[in-house]
């Protein structure tokens, strides 16, 4: 039995603007180490909202989030930031790289922030990650010089730099063409199978979801499946 690395305990979320509406209702689930899970559901059903809560970026909710056996309730901004830094790798739909820095610096950034390794070691690790993703040759380029698919792979390399307990993705292939989506999916699958990496990926691509280990289906702010 693998350890639970992510747990949602009766999470509810309301938006108060313009009128109070409930977007998440009593969400409960557990994710085990090495699981490759996807969350699917219609647009507007609350997938992104749930992911922001699970990733500790949104703190305005009811219920509890447990990551790697630690409760996230009542943690300070700084503590949550270091949880995100050390334990979570995030991949967004719109790549979100720092255009002011080189690809390599982008990948190194969370590692430098964590500070577990020296700058030299972090650089070496960044190169390794880029190699796993097949973009080591782009290391010294600027993000603006890369294609969409390449940028997304850089974002994945960055998510991996601190060996997080979980990678979360909010429609990471939503903005990519078929071919690049395929590449990104294969990378995720390889991470799960070869490196026993846990992944929780929001998608509205049912084909993508079908190929993951586990599908969490949402509707109107509830998990239905």
């Amino acid at each position, binding site marked *: 039995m693998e350890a639970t690395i992510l747990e949602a305990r009766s999470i509810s979320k309301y938006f108060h603007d313009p009128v109070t509406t409930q977007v998440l209702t009593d969400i409960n689930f557990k994710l085990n180490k090495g699981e490759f899970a996807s969350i699917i559901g219609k647009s507007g059903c609350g997938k992104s909202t749930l992911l*922001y809560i699970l990733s500790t*970026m949104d703190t305005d909710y009811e219920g509890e989030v447990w990551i790697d056996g630690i409760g996230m309730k009542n943690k300070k901004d700084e503590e949550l*930031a270091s949880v995100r830094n050390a334990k979570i790798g995030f991949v967004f739909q719109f790549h979100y790289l720092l255009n002011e820095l080189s690809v390599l*610096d982008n990948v190194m950034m969370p590692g430098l922030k964590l500070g577990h390794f020296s700058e030299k070691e972090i650089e070496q690790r960044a190169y390794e990650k880029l190699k796993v993703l097949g973009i080591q040759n782009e290391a010294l380029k600027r993000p603006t010089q890369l294609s969409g698919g390449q940028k997304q792979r850089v974002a994945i390399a960055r998510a991996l730099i601190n060996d997080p307990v979980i990678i979360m993705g909010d429609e990471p292939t939503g903005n990519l063409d078929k071919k690049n989506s395929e590449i990104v999916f294969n990378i995720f699958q390889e991470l799960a199978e070869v490196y026993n990496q846990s992944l929780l990926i929001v998608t509205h691509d049912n084909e993508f979801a079908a190929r993951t280990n586990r599908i969490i289906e949402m509707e109107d702010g509830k998990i239905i499946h």
Partner: protein
Amino acid sequence: MKVKLITKVSRSFLLARWKQTLVAALGVTFSITMFIALLSFMAGLNDMLDGLILNRTPHIRLYNEILPSKIQPIDQSQQFKNHHNFVSSIKPKNIRLEIYNNAAVINALKKDARVSGVAPKIIAQVFYNVGVIDVTGIINGIDVEAENKLFLFSDYVTEGNFMDLKNIPNSIILGKGAAEKMLAQIGDNIQVTTTKGERMQLKVVGFYQSGIQDIDKVQSYASISTTQKLLGESSSYITDIQIKLNDMLLAPALSEEYAQLFDVEAIDIQKANAQFETGSSVRTLISYAVGITLLIVAGFGIYNILNMMIYEKMDSIAILKATGFSGKDVNAIFITIALTIGIFGGILGLVLGYGLSALIDQIPFNTDSLPTVKTYPINYNPQFYMIGAIFSIVTTYLAGYFPSRKASKIDPVIIIRGK
């Protein structure tokens, strides 16, 4: 490690917007440059104007004056002790202006550790005889070397050699204005008459120009022995003792002490020239006000640029937060940006401020009333540079404070969702 990382991010943000950054930094540079130049020039001007009077004014002057007796007999009567007494039966008598036992007084003063220098002086009322007309004047009998040491006498002798006053017997250095009235040239002999009617021929060895017209029309200088001869007094006759102190601020207290101790009148420089202090401090205040205003304007420039930068960098801030940077880290990044602008702009400003001061220092400034001044005066006080440096850092910090706080509070969810 953390400092290095924050510097790295700050630098990348700065370089991505280097033109705006440069403009902001140049704003600081400009204001610091003007601040330094303005203060140095104002202080130079103050020094010059103060010097006009203060350099030549003793910190304490001991003298005798014809005054009514301070204690009238009626004051000593027990019977009228608590009454308002207005009977003054003792009138001033014809006391001499000489300071008695002055050699001993001078010796005592020279031994006093608080005193930096002592110069004796005789003030003699005379008439300069110009043809048939007599012009009133004053001859200052001075100890040439002491006077030069204490009051930079040689600076104000615009023609001739001041030491001739000591070396040539019966010589005089005429005030420029007085010399013009008498049409006197160096080497001429002029005639003066004392208030007691004695006449004497004096040889003109130089001209004296203080910068104050009214003084130059009246005052002339001779050696002490010449003046004693002129007045027909003994070689111990002295009317004034001029004292310079190590600390000018002690003058009021010490002048009272000496008046008591030596039983003479004493006046301190603060009492004699109260108005100069006020003038200087007002000028200084104005320069600081202008300089600080410039800095505040530069501060608003930085504030604007940071706000704009934060608006542009929303995505980057969101990504930093999503990958584990805390609000504090983001705050530190923007404060670093503000301080970098402040420090680099400030350093350049200090250098250019020094350059501008040096330039002003070269501009010729010749005026008859200021014989010792050849260029615009500049005071290179390191204090101005310190204040400029501190102010540039403080203003940029304050300018960066609110934008940085705003940046640190950015909610990454709103930014990421907004895409």
